[in-house]
C-alpha cells in the first residue's frame, strides 16, 4: 500500500530575504538573530519545528544573512486517509543571502534550498531597491528562478521506501514594489508580482473522483495543466495613532490562468502598554473561486481532459484571528548584546469549503456527506537578539 509520504512543496515564489517593497530608506537591516519555534495543529495535521535566522553586517555596506528552517510533519488529513496511510516526514530548508548598499541603492542576492524525501527545490533570487525623493519613496525590483524535482514515494510492508522521480517544475517570478511616506503618520506599500510555472505542477498523490454507474464514488488519476501564470497585486497602509499605537490594513487581489480569483483582506493593531511590553492583534479574511478544471465529483469517468480535486484549487474561504505579546529587555551582559525580545503569538484559523466533501476511501456513497471544514491553531514562540 502506498504510504502518503510526500508532500507537495509549493513554489518558492519569492525570497526569504528579498528586500520587501515596504522597506524605507537605503539602510542595511539590523544585525539580529531570531530563534523561532512554530506549531500548526488542524485538519488532522501537525507541523512543527524551529527556524533560525541570523543577520550580520560584515562591512558598512555589506550585510549577510542565513536561515535554517525545519517542518516536522505528522499527517492524517482527509486527503491522506482517503487514499493512503498516515505518515510522518521532515522538510528542511536552508537559505543564504547578501545585501550590498551603494548610495541610495541596495542590491540583494540569495539562494534557497529545500529538501524532502520526495521533493527538492532549488531557488535563486536577485533584487535591487532604490530610495529617492529624500527617502520618501522606495522602489524595488526582484526576480526569482526556481527548479523543483517532484517524486512519488511508495512504501510496501517490509520494504524500504521507494521514491520515483516523476517530473520537474520550473518557476520564474518577477516582483515590483513601491513604498511611500504619505504623511508624517501614514505609510503606503504597493506590491505586484507575476509568477510563471511550467512542468509537473500536480501532486502525484492526489486523485480525482467520479460517480460510477453503481452510484458509488470512485477514484481516477488527476491531470492538471503543465503551465500556470498568476498575477498578484496588493496595497498596504499603516497609520500612527496619537496615543502611541499603530493600525494597519491590507488588501490583495490574485488571479491566475487556472481560473482562480482570490481576495485577501487584513487588518492589525499594535499597542505598546509599557516600555517593555507590546501587544498586538490581527484579523485576516481570504476567499477564492475554484480552478476551471476542479471538480469535487465528476459525473463519470474520464469526463474532462484536465481534472483535479486538490482542496487548494476548490472554492473556499478562511478567517484568521490572531493575538500576540512581546517583551523587550536590555541585558547588561554580554556587552555586545544591545537588546532582546521574547515573543508569543497565536492564530486561530477556520477554513470552510464550498465544494469539497470528505468522501473517504473509494467505494462509498456520496449521499449525506456535509461540506468539509476545519479549525486550526498556529502558535509561534521566538526570541530575537540585536547586537
Amino acid at each position, binding site marked *: 500500500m502506498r504510504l502518503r509520504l510526500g508532500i*507537495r512543496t509549493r513554489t518558492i*515564489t519569492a525570497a526569504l530575504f528579498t528586500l520587501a517593497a515596504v522597506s524605507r530608506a537605503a539602510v542595511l537591516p539590523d544585525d539580529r538573530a531570531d530563534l523561532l519555534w512554530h506549531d500548526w495543529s488542524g485538519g488532522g495535521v501537525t507541523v512543527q519545528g524551529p527556524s533560525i*535566522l541570523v543577520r550580520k553586517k560584515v562591512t558598512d555596506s555589506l550585510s549577510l544573512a542565513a536561515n535554517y528552517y525545519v517542518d516536522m510533519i505528522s499527517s492524517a488529513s482527509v486527503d491522506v486517509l482517503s487514499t493512503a496511510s498516515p505518515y510522518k516526514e521532515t522538510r528542511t530548508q536552508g537559505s543564504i543571502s547578501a545585501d550590498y548598499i551603494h548610495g541610495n541603492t541596495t542590491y540583494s542576492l540569495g539562494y534557497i534550498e529545500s529538501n524532502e524525501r520526495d521533493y527538492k527545490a532549488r531557488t535563486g533570487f536577485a533584487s535591487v531597491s532604490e530610495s529617492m525623493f529624500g527617502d520618501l519613496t522606495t522602489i524595488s525590483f526582484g526576480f526569482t528562478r526556481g527548479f523543483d524535482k517532484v517524486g512519488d514515494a511508495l512504501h510496501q510492508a517490509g520494504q524500504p521506501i521507494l521514491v520515483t522521480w516523476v517530473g520537474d517544475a520550473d518557476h520564474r517570478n518577477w516582483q515590483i514594489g513601491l513604498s511611500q511616506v504619505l504623511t*508624517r503618520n501614514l505609510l503606503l506599500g504597493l506590491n505586484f508580482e507575476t509568477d510563471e510555472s511550467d512542468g509537473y505542477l500536480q501532486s502525484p498523490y492526489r486523485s480525482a473522483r467520479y460517480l460510477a454507474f453503481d452510484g458509488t464514488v470512485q477514484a481516477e488519476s488527476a491531470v492538471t495543466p503543465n503551465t500556470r501564470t498568476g498575477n*498578484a497585486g496588493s496595497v498596504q497602509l*499603516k497609520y500612527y495613532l496619537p496615543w*502611541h499605537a*499603530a493600525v494597519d490594513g491590507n488588501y490583495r487581489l490574485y488571479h*491566475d490562468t487556472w481560473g482562480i480569483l482570490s481576495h485577501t483582506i487584513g487588518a492589525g493593531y499594535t499597542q505598546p502598554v509599557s516600555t517593555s511590553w507590546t501587544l498586538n492583534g490581527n484579523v485576516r479574511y481570504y476567499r477564492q473561486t475554484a480552478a476551471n478544471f476542479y471538480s469535487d465529483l465528476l459525473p463519470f469517468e474520464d469526463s474532462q481532459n484536465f481534472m483535479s480535486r486538490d482542496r487548494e484549487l476548490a472554492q473556499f474561504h478562511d478567517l484568521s484571528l490572531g493575538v500576540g505579546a512581546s517583551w523587550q529587555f536590555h541585558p547588561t551582559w554580554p556587552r555586545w548584546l544591545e537588546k532582546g525580545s521574547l515573543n508569543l503569538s497565536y492564530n486561530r484559523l477556520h477554513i470552510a469549503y464550498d465544494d469539497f466533501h470528505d468522501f473517504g476511501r473509494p467505494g462509498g456513497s456520496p449521499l449525506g456527506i456535509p461540506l468539509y471544514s476545519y479549525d486550526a491553531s498556529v502558535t509561534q514562540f521566538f526570541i530575537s537578539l540585536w547586537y
Partner: protein
Amino acid sequence: MRAGLLLLVGAMTLCGCSAPQPWVKPYEREHLADPIMSFDPNPVSSVYLDHVYEVREGARGATGSVGGGCGCN
C-alpha cells in the same frame, strides 16, 4: 494640437528642472521611525505565516516578504 504639444514640452521642462521636494521633512519622521510602524518587524515570523497560508490557498505572492513552503497536507 500645437498648443497641446507646447503644453507637454512645458510640463516636461518643468519636471526636468525641479525634482519633487520631500513634503515630510527628516525632523518630522519621529513617528515613522518608531518600531511599531514597521511593516515587517519580525521577518522570521511573517515569512512563516505567509508560508502557512500559501500552502493551503490557491493565491500566492505580493505580500512584501514571502518564503518557501511545503504542502503539509
